[in-house]
């Protein structure tokens, strides 16, 4: 059962009070500060998750990426196929990381985060994959894409419930 006030007080006072119950923060000032630090903490958690994803990708660790998803998550990358469930998702990443994206490096930056409901956030970001090899062994140009991810809170960690990423097509007349 998610209690927003519990979450808020937890973040502010957890460091000072080892075993904090579920008391609402009493002071208005404290609440204001708390909300701010909750946002900071959320941004930090989201970036930490993106970093974990990147680290697993760069290590070629498909299972490591899949572990960042919820058990019943869905995921769809630039090829448009939708993979459902952690197992399918792991298999898909294994195919990628042993195939077209073997030995590549990904970097991810999050551009915006907003709460859809308590314990659920939508995150927009961009990614860049470098070091892919073409059919003739030539190095491919970096693939730059966008992603939108739904994260759900699971205890004190966040997991990917749904991910969509795509490589933007060029507008006509541009190169």
């Amino acid at each position, binding site marked *: 059962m998610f209690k927003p006030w519990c979450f808020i007080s937890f973040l502010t006072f957890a460091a000072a009070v080892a075993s904090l119950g579920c008391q609402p923060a009493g002071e208005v000032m404290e609440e204001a500060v708390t909300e701010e630090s909750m946002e900071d903490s959320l941004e930090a958690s989201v970036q930490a998750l993106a970093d974990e994803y990147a680290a697993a990708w760069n290590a070629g660790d498909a299972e490591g990426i899949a572990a960042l998803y919820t058990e019943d998550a*869905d995921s*769809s990358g*630039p*090829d*448009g196929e*939708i993979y*459902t469930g952690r197992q399918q998702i792991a298999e898909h990443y294994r195919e*990628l990381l042993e*195939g*077209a*994206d*073997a030995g590549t490096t990904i970097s991810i930056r999050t551009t915006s985060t*907003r709460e*859809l*409901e308590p314990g*659920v956030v*939508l995150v*927009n970001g961009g990614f860049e994959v470098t070091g*892919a*090899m*073409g*059919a003739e062994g030539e190095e*491919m140009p970096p693939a730059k894409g*966008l992603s*939108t991810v*739904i994260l*759900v809170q699971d205890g004190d960690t966040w997991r990917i*419930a*749904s991910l*969509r990423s*795509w*490589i*933007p*097509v*060029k*507008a*006509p*007349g541009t190169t």
Partner: protein
Amino acid sequence: MRKMVLLMMSLGFLGGLTLAQDTSADEDAIRQLDERWKEAWNNRDAQALAELFAEDADGIDAMGAAVSGRMAIEEHYIQSFENLPPEAGAESEIVSLRFIRPTLAVVDGTWSMTGLPETDEGLPTEGLYTVFVVKRGGQWLYAAGRSRIPVSPPQTE
């Protein structure tokens, strides 16, 4: 559906039974949202389109252009319709729908546009879309819309 209900009853999973019933009504409502979108788009009704979105909704198209907030979304549709030939039409079809939570679902589908002049040949006329829908105040609304043109990954063999 009946099999599912029976299975849940045989397991004594009454909570699950209630959820299954609620979900089908919600699923209908979500599918209705897409029908209303098509109707409003084909009527060039930017205001009706904007009303399908949550106040804080955002949209990103296949080219990466982003709009944020219901007002910006309405403005985006107004501008999109300005140079659109009257015969241009939009079609879409839902391919999958999954509830992430009782009040949040992800919907994937295909879209296509017809009746565009030859000069716009460079523009993609079909692709995929994903919308995240939320139930707020008893009403399902688009929280986010994404349009994607699938690309095949580079072949290594």
